[in-house]
C-alpha cells in the first residue's frame, strides 16, 4: 500500500504521453494479434479444416465406402490393438517409475534417470524402430533364438507393439512425478501408522489423489500409441491388411491415389486428436484448480 502511493503521484504529470502510448499500443496489439492469427491459419487452422472438408466434401458416400474395405477395417482393428497393449503396460511402468522417483528424493543420478525416461521423446521414431529391428530382426541379437522358436516379431504385430511402447513410454511417468511430489507423504504415513498395507495405501490413499494426473498421462499415451507412424512403419513392413495401422493406411492410400480412403482414415485420427485436446483442456482445468488449492 505504501509503495502504491508515490506511483500514483508520479503518474499524474505525464498523462498526455501515456494517452498517446495507449493509442499506439492498441495499434500494436491489433497487428500482433493479426500476425499470430494469420500464421496459425496458414500452418494449423486451414490444414485442420481441410481434413474434414476433404473427408466429407463429396458427401458421406466415399466416407462410408471406405468403412466397408477390409484393409481399412483391419487397420482400425490393429490400431486399437496397439493402444490396448501399450497403454496399460506403459501406465503400469509410469506409475512404478513415478512412485520410485518421487518417493526417493536423494539418490545419485536422480536427475539423470528422469532425463533417461524422457529419451524416447528426443530419439527419432525411425531410430527407435531401427533399434528394435537390430534386436529382434533376422540378423539381430535375438534373431537366431526367435527363428529357432518360430517367433516372429519384426514385420509382425509384436514388433509394432514394442515400437509403440517405446515411443509412448514417458508420458505417464512424466505427468505423475510432479503430482506425487506435490501431494507429499503425510497422508501415506498416516495410512501406514493406522495399519494399512502397502496395497491398501496405494488404492485408497495415493491413487485417488493422483488420478487426474494418471488420466492425463493415459490420454497422451493413447494418442501417441494410436497415431505413431515412423517407428511402426520401420518394423511393420507395411503388409497391407496384416501389419497396417491407421497412420500407415493413410500414407499407403495417399501414395496409391486413393485420396478418399486416406482422408477417411485421417478424419478418424483427427477426431482422436480433438478428443485428446478437449480432455487435456478439461483435465488441465482440474489439475490447475487443485494445485492452486495446494499452494
Amino acid at each position, binding site marked *: 500500500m505504501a509503495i502504491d502511493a508515490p506511483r500514483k503521484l508520479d503518474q499524474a504529470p505525464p498523462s498526455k504521453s501515456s494517452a498517446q*502510448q495507449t493509442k*499506439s499500443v492498441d495499434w500494436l496489439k491489433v497487428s*500482433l*494479434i493479426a*500476425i*499470430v492469427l494469420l*500464421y*496459425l491459419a*496458414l*500452418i*494449423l*487452422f*486451414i*490444414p*485442420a479444416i*481441410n*481434413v474434414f472438408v476433404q473427408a466429407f466434401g463429396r458427401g458421406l458416400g466415399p466416407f462410408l465406402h471406405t468403412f466397408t474395405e477390409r484393409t481399412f477395417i483391419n487397420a482400425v482393428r490393429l490400431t486399437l490393438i496397439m493402444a490396448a497393449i501399450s497403454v496399460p503396460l506403459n501406465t503400469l*511402468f509410469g*506409475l*512404478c*517409475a513415478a*512412485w*520410485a*522417483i518421487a518417493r526417493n528424493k536423494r539418490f545419485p543420478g536422480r536427475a539423470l534417470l528422469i*532425463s533417461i525416461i524422457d*529419451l524416447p*521423446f*528426443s*530419439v*527419432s*521414431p*525411425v*531410430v*527407435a524402430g*531401427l*533399434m528394435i*529391428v*537390430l*534386436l529382434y530382426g533376422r540378423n539381430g541379437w535375438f534373431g537366431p533364438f526367435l527363428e529357432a522358436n518360430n517367433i516372429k516379431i519384426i514385420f509382425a504385430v509384436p514388433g509394432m507393439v*514394442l515400437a509403440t511402447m*517405446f515411443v509412448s*513410454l514417458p508420458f505417464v511417468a512424466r505427468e505423475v512425478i510432479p503430482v506425487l511430489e506435490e501431494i507429499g507423504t503425510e497422508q501415506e504415513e498416516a495410512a501406514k501408522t493406522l495399519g494399512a498395507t502397502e496395497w491398501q495405501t496405494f488404492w485408497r490413499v495415493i491413487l485417488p489423489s493422483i488420478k487426474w494426473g494418471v488420466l492425463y498421462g493415459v490420454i497422451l499415451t493413447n494418442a501417441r500409441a*494410436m*497415431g*505413431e*507412424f*515412423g517407428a511402426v*512403419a*520401420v518394423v511393420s513392413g507395411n503388409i497391407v491388411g496384416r501389419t497396417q495401422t*491407421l*497412420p500407415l493406411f*493413410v*500414407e499407403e492410400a*495417399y501414395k496409391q491415389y486413393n485420396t478418399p480412403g*486416406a482422408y477417411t482414415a*485421417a478424419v478418424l*485420427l483427427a477426431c482422436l*486428436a480433438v478428443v485428446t*485436446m478437449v480432455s*487435456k483442456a478439461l483435465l488441465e482445468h482440474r489439475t490447475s484448480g487443485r494445485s492452486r488449492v495446494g499452494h
Partner: protein
Amino acid sequence: MTPSSLPQQNRSPAWANGIRKGLQMSWAWRVTWFYLIVMLFIPTIALFLRSLTLSPSEIWRIATSPTALSAYNVTFLTALAAGVINGFMGLIAAWVLVRYEFPFKRIIDAAIDLPFALPTAVAGLTLATVYSERGWIGSLLVPFGIKISFTRLGVLLAMLFISFPFIVRTVQPVLQEVEKEVEEAAWSLGATQVQTFWRVILPPLMPAVLTGVALGFARAVGEYGSVVIIASNIPFQDLIAPVLIFQRLEQYDYAGATVIGTVMLLISLLMLLAINLLQAWGRRYGN
C-alpha cells in the same frame, strides 16, 4: 597415506550396502528397472554395438557419404530455419495469448496443441494437399512460381507445424510470471517501447525461448511421418536423414541404416544435454 586409505575402508561397506539395497529393492523399483532395461537400455546399446562391429574407416565412409552429408544438411539446416522462424512467431503468439484479450482466445490457445495431438501422417497428408499446386494455398502461390509440396519448402512447412507448440508452451508460463510493473517502471523512467522490449522484457524470456527452440529443433530433426508425405524424398534435394535411414533399411542395407542411425542418436543425446543445460540456466535466471 593413512588419510586416503581410511575413507576407502569406509567406502567398501557402503558399496556392499548398495548391492544389498539393490537386492531388497521395492517392487516399484524392480518394475521400473526391468522395463527401462528391456525397452530402452538394451535397444540403445544394441544400436551402438552394432555400428562398432564395422571398421572405423567403414563407419566414416558411410557416415560421410555424399547422400548422407546432403541428408544431414537438409535435416539440420531446415530444422534450424524452422526453429528460428518459430522462435519469433512462438514468442509473439505467447505474448498475444498472455497479454491481450480477444474473441475466441481460449479456443485458439487450446488449438496451439494440435501438432502434439494430431498424428504426423495426418499432418503430412493435409499439408501436402493444402500446399500442392491444386490446393487451397498452393494454387495461390503458383503465379509467383513458388512450389511447396514435394520441395524443401514442404519439409520446412512440416517442421514449422510440428515444432510450433514447443516454443509457445515453454515461453507462456515464464511470460505469465514476468511482472507488468517492471515494464511500467521502465516506461515511467522514460524508456521507449523498443528499449523496454529489448532491455526489460526479452532478457528474462531468453532462456525459455531458447529452450523452446531447442525442443522444437530436436523434434524437427527426428521427424519422419509428416515430412515423408509432403517431400519427394529425392537425395540431394529434400531427403532428410530419418527418411534415408528408412530407405537404407528397405534396401536391407543394415550397415548404412545403423551408422546413420547412430549419428542421429548421438545428436539427439547432445540435444538432450543442451536442453537440460538451457533449463538449468532458466531456473537460475528465475531465482
